[in-house]
């Protein structure tokens, strides 16, 4: 911050060769005179020397500027500098009223004189509202967008606040903020991660709009210590929210060097996975299907490539990710554990830019820029693999040498600004994985999402977002190896959604969020189709399942005092499966089987099969002891109507999904949590401690010997399970500085228990048993050290207790082979997990003026080469002694190199 600003209470200005913007400050601070000037003139380049007192200042200024072709006009405490002729000072009486001229518009005028009407100067005073308003008392509401000065992209998660009285807001996914301010002179402060802090001087007369441009931090300044996240953590009632920006993701070492949007989620406290290379993740004891994964509003059912090795999102397109672990906002619903929101970027609004990169397995490319400058932007990215060489490395006689594995994904987005109040967004996403291992067997799955979103500012207090879209996921396997059995099997989920979300800032105490969500599901649980004329496979198409889910919600963020605020949310959801469908009724209390059928019911097309509805509560409270310490507590309950059925530990690509119906009850869950958040060491370090207790009901587990694919009576093969989980998460975070990163320790337990009595097949005799992702101790470190702006190193450490497994307790010889008698489910644990990764990031060309920027990343995944157990199993074919083995997926250090180029 220039020291000039500090010069206060001086009655005289003595300035030698200063720029006009410095003079503006001096004039304001010393004399209380505000200078307005037009930016598109050459006044910026003038170096002014002046020495005067308050009374002589306007005249002296005019003397300096007139030779340059400017006029100086004093109006009250305002000085207007215009090119050419001055302003007519004396308007006829009542002129303003008659012409409806408002000084508000003169603000617009002065704004339009700024580049593109966006505030970016710390040395100007921005007038908000009508300066002719009689009194500077009471409150006004300021709203607008925060954008990147370089690219014009909206900046998300920027803290916008004033310090006295303590009032804050955070920009949303569109860079939009809205903050109530006391009228009068205010210093509006903006802080965002990776951005230069800004302090804007405002003169607030009434409600108004102000768009603000922030500069990306170029690593020469060394001033800011606060990050958006820390400010946000302390000020909002939101709890259990983790935000990660993409630049962080790109610096974290990953297997094969692929910057991975999903894998970063696993480094956050409270998030676990059953093992490397598995697609799913578990949040605070929830199952993998209890996470709602949203990519630009669309629901993604299979967010991975190559069976879970990579996430299916292109890191060049993604802006940030947000993971809600508790106090899930009322606008989200449909899953009971967490919400993972992935936002893509809007694209550069100023010029066409892009990037390209190659790694060991993938090549990628992205392009972005304006179609119509400052109005319509696009961003498009594509990724593909050339992983066939891995199959080529298989032994000659393995039969897979001629196999192929391919995936690609395409993300595209267009944003169009209709006017200053309305914006349209069009997003599309497509990913496909295909495999062919020999000429006989092929396999593929794909995601397809498209959505249209309209965002509108109804007025300064009120805005809306309406989105509608289509989500699709399907997979298909086919095997033509045996002519008689040749088949192909298909599975698909399709959904159409409509979401309307309103934000309404009633006053400085109440901010309301309300809206409607509606989803129509169509799930094709399976179709088996013969291939070829010889095939005897009976074509079998399971009846499509249809359902609708609608919810209304309302939440009020209520700031009772500066220190104490509440967030009260209520969501009411109504779900029903729809006909046409024929289903069985079973004798209550009996295991469901052919024998316990009591009735067969047929429901006509479009008719409700069985509605399930109920309220969901989302409540949280915050108490801020001071600027550096706050306490939060919350409760939320959730409902889930779609279930994933799996009998494997990891998410498998052939896992099937099932909608709730007459026999399958929706899952429900609730969580209560508390959190303590603090800043230490001059706000350089953020500390947080969160604890939770959670219950889950009607989670579907499979019976022994269950058949989950192509099963029309799947309710007979699954059992309802209850779960409970509790834990405590401790996190230390240093978001900025040479050394930055976080360390998180979690202690947690997750237990499951079969609820419905089922003779003989009661899992673990109906007792509680640990879930397969129950890993009590968990320590994660993500660290990055910047030696220079061109050279940084990153280190990951990941330690956790081994996951529970079912192991054999005894062997017996049966059917000409050794067979194993297994323990109770998940009665034993595999050895503890430990992994350390290391990466060096080099950016050889860091000059802003260069056309292209390249980055090289060298790294080693699993630096210590520890052979972490993924699973343990027993070979029953090797002799009389049954030998146990452990399978390690990345059992050695894996070096990698990637090269990315930005243009």
């Amino acid at each position, binding site marked *: 911050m220039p020291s000039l600003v500090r010069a206060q209470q001086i009655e005289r200005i003595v300035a030698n060769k200063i720029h006009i913007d410095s003079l503006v400050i001096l004039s304001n601070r010393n004399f209380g005179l505000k200078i307005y000037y037009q930016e598109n003139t050459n006044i910026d380049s003038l170096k002014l020397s002046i020495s005067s007192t308050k009374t002589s200042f306007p005249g002296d200024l005019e003397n300096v500027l007139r030779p340059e072709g400017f006029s100086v006009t004093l109006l009250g405490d305002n000085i207007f500098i215009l090119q050419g002729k001055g302003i007519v000072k004396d308007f006829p009486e009542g002129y303003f009223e008659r012409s409806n001229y408002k000084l508000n518009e003169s603000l617009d005028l002065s704004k339009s004189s700024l580049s593109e009407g966006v505030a970016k100067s710390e040395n100007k005073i921005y007038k908000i509202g009508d300066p002719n308003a009689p009194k500077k008392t009471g409150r006004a509401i300021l709203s607008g967008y925060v954008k990147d000065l370089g690219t014009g992209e909206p900046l998300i998660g920027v803290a916008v606040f004033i310090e006295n009285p303590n009032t804050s807001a955070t920009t949303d996914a569109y860079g939009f903020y809205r903050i109530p301010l006391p009228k009068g002179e205010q210093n509006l402060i903006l802080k965002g991660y990776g951005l230069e802090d800004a302090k804007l001087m405002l003169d607030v007369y009434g409600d108004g709009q102000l768009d603000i441009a922030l500069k990306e931090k170029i690593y020469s300044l060394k001033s800011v210590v606060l990050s958006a996240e820390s400010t946000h953590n302390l000020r909002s009632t939101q709890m259990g929210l983790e935000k990660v920006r993409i630049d962080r993701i790109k610096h974290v070492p990953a297997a094969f060097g692929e910057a991975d949007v999903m894998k970063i989620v696993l480094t956050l406290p409270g998030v676990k996975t059953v093992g490397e*290379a*598995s697609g799913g993740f578990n949040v605070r004891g929830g199952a993998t299907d209890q996470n709602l994964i949203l990519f630009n509003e669309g629901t993604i059912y299979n967010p991975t490539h*190559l*069976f879970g*090795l990579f996430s299916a999102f292109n890191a060049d397109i993604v802006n940030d990710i947000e993971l809600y672990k508790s106090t899930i906002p009322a606008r989200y619903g449909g899953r009971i554990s967490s919400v993972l929101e992935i936002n893509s970027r809007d694209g550069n609004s100023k010029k066409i830019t892009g990037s390209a990169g190659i790694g060991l397995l993938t090549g990628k490319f992205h392009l972005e820029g304006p179609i119509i400058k400052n109005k319509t932007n696009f961003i498009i990215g594509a990724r593909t693999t050339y992983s066939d060489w891995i*199959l080529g490395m298989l032994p000659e*006689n393995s*039969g*897979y040498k001629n196999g192929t*594995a391919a995936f690609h994904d395409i993300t595209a987005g267009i944003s169009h600004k209709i006017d200053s109040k309305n914006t349209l967004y069009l997003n599309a996403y497509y990913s496909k994985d295909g495999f062919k291992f020999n000429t006989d*067997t092929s*396999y593929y799955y794909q995601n397809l999402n498209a959505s249209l979103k309209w965002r509108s500012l109804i007025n300064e207090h009120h805005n809306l977002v309406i989105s509608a879209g289509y989500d699709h996921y399907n997979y298909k396997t086919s*095997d033509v190896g045996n002519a*008689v*059995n040749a088949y192909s*099997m298909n599975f698909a989920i399709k959904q159409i959604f409509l979401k309307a979300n309103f934000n309404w800032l009633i006053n400085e105490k109440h901010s309301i969020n309300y809206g409607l969500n509606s989803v129509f599901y169509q799930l094709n649980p399976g179709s088996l189709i013969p291939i070829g004329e010889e095939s*005897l*496979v*009976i074509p079998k198409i399971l009846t499509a399942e249809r359902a609708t889910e609608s919810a209304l919600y309302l939440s009020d963020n209520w700031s009772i005092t500066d220190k104490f605020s509440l967030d009260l949310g209520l969501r009411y959801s109504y779900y029903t499966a729809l006909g046409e469908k024929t289903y069985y009724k079973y004798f209550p209390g009996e295991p469901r089987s052919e024998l316990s059928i009591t009735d067969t019911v047929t429901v006509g097309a479009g008719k409700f099969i069985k509605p399930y509805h109920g309220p969901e509560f989302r409540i949280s409270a915050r108490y801020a002891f001071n600027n550096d310490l706050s306490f939060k507590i919350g409760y939320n309950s959730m409902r889930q109507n779609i279930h994933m059925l799996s*009998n*494997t*530990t*990891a998410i*498998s*690509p*052939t896992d099937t999904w099932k909608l709730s119906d007459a026999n399958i009850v929706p899952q429900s869950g609730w969580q209560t949590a508390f959190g303590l958040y603090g800043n230490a060491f001059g706000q350089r370090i953020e500390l947080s401690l969160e604890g939770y207790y959670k219950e889950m009901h009607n989670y579907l587990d499979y019976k*022994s010997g*269950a058949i989950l694919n192509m099963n029309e009576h799947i309710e007979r093969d699954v059992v309802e399970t209850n779960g409970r989980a509790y834990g405590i998460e401790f996190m230390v975070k240093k978001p900025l500085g040479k050394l930055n990163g976080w360390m998180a320790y979690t202690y947690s337990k997750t237990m499951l228990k079969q609820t419905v009595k089922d003779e003989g097949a009661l*899992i673990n005799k109906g007792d509680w048993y640990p879930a397969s992702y129950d890993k009590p101790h968990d320590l994660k470190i993500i660290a990055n050290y910047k030696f220079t702006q061109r050279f940084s190193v990153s280190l990951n450490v990941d330690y956790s207790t081994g996951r529970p497994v*079912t192991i054999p307790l*005894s*062997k*017996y*010889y*049966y*059917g*000409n*082979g050794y*067979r*194993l*008698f*297994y*323990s109770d489910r998940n*009665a034993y644990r595999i050895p503890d997990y430990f992994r350390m990764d290391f990466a060096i990031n080099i950016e050889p060309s860091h000059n802003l003026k260069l056309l292209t920027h390249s980055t090289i990343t060298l790294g080693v995944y699993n630096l210590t080469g520890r*052979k972490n*157990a993924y*699973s*343990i199993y*027993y070979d029953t074919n090797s002799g*009389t002694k049954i*030998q*146990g*083995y*452990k*399978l*390690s*997926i990345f*059992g*050695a*250090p894996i070096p990698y190199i990637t090269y990315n180029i930005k243009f």
Partner: protein
Amino acid sequence: MKVAKLYIYMLISALMINGCVTPFEPEGYDQLENLLVIEGDISTNEQTEIIVSRSLKLNDISKRNYIKGAVVWVESELGVKYPASQVTTGTDVKYVANTIGLDVSKKYKLCVTTPDGKAYESDLVSVIISPDIDSIEFVSDTTNKRVTFYVNTHDGSNKTHYYKWSYTEDWEFTSHLYSSFEYNPITMQITEIPSYQKNRYYCWNKDVSKKIIATSTTHLSSDRVYRMPLVSMESLDLRISALYSIEVKQRALSREGFQYWETLRKNSDQVGGIFSPQPSEMKGNIKCITDSEETVLGFISAGYVTKKRFFASKEEIGIYYNPHVCETLIPESFTPPVAWSTMFDTGYDIVSNSPSVRESVWAPVACVDCRIFGTKNKPSFWPNDHI
């Protein structure tokens, strides 16, 4: 779908070039032993053979812990008992009941009373009649040098649906070199083999199926099994070096029986992979009457079994290839000459001997003596006159 998962597993394995499997012994838990295991199926066209044993700890080196002296019988739904008698062969103990000619329209159960006085019995099960085996065939993949034997069957009345197979295989093979001499390590003399009958050239061996082979045809429009793989061999496999024979026994199962064997198969074959199902609990159809809490392992079925034998010669199969690294040495040609006993002790055996020129030819014993890989016990049904 099963196949797809296997392939996925293979791909993942391939991807994990650094992925690895290492021996592992979990610690800190108690293994179980002495769970009662009852194995065997009631047959209406064969003798019923029942094995009663107890389970063992995983690292126990014995195969079975047989229970001797149990009382075992098959009982019909009308209460007619068909007692089994204990037959001991070496260390093996089994109980054999003559159940040939049982009325296939009745239900039967198996009952066991162990020497410690505990009584066990299976559920009453129906007799399921297996259709005939249509054919056994093989397909040679000359590209990948692999031969696979398949079974084909069908049920014209579309009733069977669940099938299980087991097989015994016999094969004839020869040593690479014919030797009419043998070395006696006691007398340290080379003698001519007195009788051609004792040649060390032709040998036989046998084995039984170890994998669980079962399938269902419920997803097919007709009850037909086409090319169910039984056994697969590579080009170096001695079993296809001369004459190979496989006798397949086909058993039809109930739905519960099929589920039991399928679960057993998955628990045995499909474990440890990334997408492997977790092991499932096994629920058999045998319970302890005297202690309802006791875990009993096994599933008893009843049925009429069908069998078929099939022969295939090396020439028909056509993929057998063995480079036979059979280097011969003449110990007398060394200076000083190597003693015969030294040759014998280092794993060589005599191929030919010419006392007149004081010259003997030796080769690795595996090239000379077929008994290294088998026996001289020629099966009675063997179709050629080799001895």
